[in-house]
């Protein structure tokens, strides 16, 4: 099972849209996907029309007393399941802290999922916290949407530094440009400059598009209601980039 996380310390950069659309595209390609909505805001759950409620809350979840399987809901799409958000996730840090090795907890918890899923995708809340660290410890790959500006450089540097300092050597960081507005000179400039500084930056970028905002109205992955749009094509391209990283052999 490959474990991905859509992450950025900043909010509003397209984490959830990324998680939802990548999860959907992966499921269409035959991967058995579980999307775990870790953000107490519950946007990913909302896009999939699933109630942001988990029986027993985050306490029950982390204690291991509840089988994760009982809490998972099937989305309307084949091969795509969702572990919904719960407002109690806002306390997740406190609960993790109660354990001896807080960051290892999550990794332990998700192990049994490997039997049923090929891909686990976390939609992370915008923060840097014990919960984020737990995700870093569990994940293989971090998908980091960044808006092509100066501040993103700071974010990426911070992230790189954090990774090496905390020893998450296994973790691969894959940034990509999101909410790109080609009318803006600054964006165009950074689209050229960023890859030079960050060679790991994925070639595909996601344009700013009203269709993506429409996801909140349609409550569907982009591919389903606007498959021909530029944004949908961009996500497909992004998924191809990601897929090459997780399945170099070409798999499915």
């Amino acid at each position, binding site marked *: 099972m490959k474990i991905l996380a859509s992450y950025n310390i900043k909010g509003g950069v397209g984490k959830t849209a990324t998680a939802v659309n990548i999860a959907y595209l992966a499921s269409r390609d035959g991967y058995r996907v579980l999307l775990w909505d870790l953000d107490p805001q519950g946007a990913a759950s909302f896009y*999939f*029309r*699933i109630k942001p409620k988990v029986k027993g809350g985050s306490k029950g979840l982390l204690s291991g007393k509840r089988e994760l399987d*009982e*809490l998972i*809901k*099937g989305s*309307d799409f084949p091969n795509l*399941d969702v572990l919904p958000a719960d407002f109690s996730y806002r306390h997740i840090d406190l609960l993790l802290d109660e354990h001896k090795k807080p960051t290892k907890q999550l990794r332990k918890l998700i192990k049994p999922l490997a039997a049923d899923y090929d891909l686990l995708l976390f939609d992370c809340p915008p923060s840097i916290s014990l919960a984020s660290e737990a995700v870093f410890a569990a994940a293989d790959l971090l998908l980091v949407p960044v808006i092509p500006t100066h501040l993103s450089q700071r974010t990426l540097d911070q992230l790189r530094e954090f990774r090496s300092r905390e020893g998450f050597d296994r973790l691969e960081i894959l940034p990509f440009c999101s909410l790109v507005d080609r009318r803006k000179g600054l964006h165009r400039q950074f689209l050229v400059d960023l890859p030079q500084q960050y060679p790991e930056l994925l070639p595909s970028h996601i344009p700013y598009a009203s269709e993506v905002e429409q996801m909140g109205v349609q*409550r569907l992955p982009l591919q389903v209601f606007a498959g021909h749009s530029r944004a949908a094509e961009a996500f497909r391209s992004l998924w191809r980039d990601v897929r090459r990283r997780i399945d170099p052999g070409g798999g499915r």
Partner: protein
Amino acid sequence: MSADLAAGSLRERLAPLVGIRALLPQAEVELQRWTLSLTDGREKTVLRLRWEEGRVAGGLDGAWFQLTPRLYLSPVKGYRKPLLQAAVRLAAHDDFQPAGDDVLEEVLQLLGRRPDACSGKPEVSLRPEQPAGEALCTILLQLLEIMELNREGTREAIDSEFLHDFRVAVRRTRSALAQVKGVLPEPVSARFRKEFAWLGEITGPLRDLDVALLAFPDYQACLPAAQREDLLPLRDLLETRQREARRLLSRRLVGKRYRQLVEEWHRWLRNPEWGDPLPPKAMRPIAEVASKRIAKLAQRAFAEGEAIAPTSPAEALHELRKTCKKLRYLLEFFASLYPGTHHGKLVKALKGLQDNLGTFQDLSVQIEEVEGYRRELAAQPGIPPATLRALDNLEAQFFERRRQCREEFGARFGRFAGKGTRRQLAATLAAGTAPEEADR
């Protein structure tokens, strides 16, 4: 064969079950399907429903049978309540009832087919006190049905197992007639023994060819890689023969003699005329007749086997093989009379010996056949000497295998004739005692 299916996971999973049997289409079904989603307040699908209705192509007159419309409920993971609620509401609704069977079972039932209809073994439930004549007629009738079920498949050579099952039914019939004497009127028994012997004869050559062709890859595998291609002229010969044999048999199975045999046998078995006086054992309880016969054959098998020394000729083993086969058929016919585990254990012990004897017999036949093929091919122009050498090598391999088989006989028979088997035999027969006898 599973080769009838396109490559993929379905074929992979079926191949070990299907083996060399052909897959035959059973029914043509036309279905219309409506898929419905039940959604909640968030317009999330919480249950999927599928409505299916249709028809299956029926008999020869082109009629269709209507299928019962069905509603399938498919749960969505994590949404159990909607599934349960829907099930409860449907159960309470007058127009719906839980399906007792699935659509495949319904289709087969409408067409009067059973999934295991091509089985070779007769399964008869007998009562120990049943008159032997009646019991035997039941068995023979089932064997006749099996034969007829396999007739078309044999004629059309759909796969080799149809002919095989056909021949086994014929063999069992002959065995029943010959082994259980004094139950049917002798003229009837003699007449049909002759007819079934004829059937055995006309089906033999094709079966031998089927077996040889099925075994051809194994023959090649016996030889060193360099020689394998040299054997191909043999395959050509066999295939030519097979085509001819199929043609001939196919004609005979629609011919007058076969049709008459089947009609008359069927008629007699359904309405037996026992004659006056009655055959001596016709009214005896079948358990008594069967047990006596089984005991006698078992003793004969023990005696014949014990008389076999390492220097005994091959015929001695062939005779023992025939005795074992007769015993096995009897045990199978009358299995329902011997409840408990002993019967199965006895059959298992017998099978152990039969495997060895069977292999010995097969190899003896194969040796003879290869000698025959060699002579034939040697007389044909254009056959390379390499082919004849390959055949010689093949024959040598068979000789060696047969020698090994012969060596194992002693131990195999020892296991069969030991105290354990004799105890199983006694226990089996005891379990089959007819009630009146038990009271004596």
